[in-house]
């Protein structure tokens, strides 16, 4: 703790971080009966954006239309507000520990350009995968594990197993 906390290099103890995150997740289950989420907010935004630009197309499409019914909207709103909170919470922590800075973080072995192309491809794949699995690392894997959901635990094993394998294939991007 002697270290200067504001130079951006300080992170809280990972077990403390885990307990904090666990308490937030527990509170979410206690208050709402559901877990946390992240990709769900992206889905809601895409659905409403497409519905605004091309209403007929969204209503015809069998995937968008699933989430356009009236009783589906409150929950999707909930996740959008939660994700706005995630950004605010991240900003708060970044301010507290002196990490606010515009930059592209990448391995010295690659250029910023390569990093950004890989990040874009990674985001696209994560977006697609999260729809198949009906949730991402937050909504499926983490929240699922807390309530022993079979889907969540299988999804978690698939994510980490596949990420482990592929990260060695793309090792140059990282170390």
């Amino acid at each position, binding site marked *: 703790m002697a270290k200067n906390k504001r130079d951006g290099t300080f*992170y*809280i103890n990972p*077990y403390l*971080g*885990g307990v*904090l995150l*666990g308490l*937030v*997740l*527990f509170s*979410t289950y*206690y208050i709402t009966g559901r877990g946390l989420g*992240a990709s769900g907010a*992206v889905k809601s935004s895409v659905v409403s954006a497409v519905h605004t630009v091309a209403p007929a197309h969204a209503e015809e499409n*069998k*995937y968008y239309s699933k989430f356009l019914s009236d009783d589906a909207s409150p929950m999707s709103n*909930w996740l959008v507000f939660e994700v*706005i*909170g*995630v*950004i*605010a*919470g*991240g*900003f708060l*922590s970044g301010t507290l520990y002196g*990490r606010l*800075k515009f930059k*592209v*973080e990448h391995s010295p072995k690659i250029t910023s350009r390569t990093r950004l192309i*890989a*990040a874009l*491809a990674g*985001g696209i*794949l*994560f*977006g*697609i*995968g*999260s*729809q198949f*699995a009906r949730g*991402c*690392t937050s909504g499926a894997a983490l929240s*699922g594990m807390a*309530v*022993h*959901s*079979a*889907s969540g*635990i*299988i*999804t978690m*094993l*698939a994510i980490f197993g*596949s*990420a482990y394998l592929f*990260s060695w294939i793309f*090792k140059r991007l*990282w170390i």
Partner: protein
Amino acid sequence: MGVIPETWNNVIALLLGVGFGFSLEASGFSSSRKIMGTFFAYDFVVLRVFFTAAITAMTGIFYFDYMGWMDMSMLYINPYYVMSAIVGGIIMGFGFALGGFCPGTSFTGVAIGKIDAMVFSGGLFIGVFIFSELYPLFQGLYNSQNMGNATIYEMLGMKSTVFGFLLIVAAVGMFYGAAFVEKKVKKVEY
């Protein structure tokens, strides 16, 4: 949920999100190279935070259920579509290895100004859009093998408390294993 008025619902969502985002960023999840440390064994922060969070929340749920303060059986459990969950997980793992973030962590990266996180987050929207537009192609797989709101302990034929206990033992075992491996691996500066 019905008792709480809509506005308060959104305030609660926002506050829980702040707690979520704060714990992620303060633990180091706004940095893709710190996250990727778990896969190359130079920094196991993801493993530690993730499993500590899961067993903390689980223990809280067990305790409150035992005391009669909440009913565990009423909690939402994601429906389990076997192949779709596995295929989705594999695609996400591929995206993880390329992008270095998952959706939640990328949002905390966005919050502190990481441009790579912003690009990753943009990619998420494109990915969801692609999936939705191509949904007729994926529909069969997406809806196949529905096992309902299945729990892992039922599948393994054990009591939920036994599975919970085994999960805690496994997590503690992994924490010791991670500390042991970390000492042997060359540090990576990032």
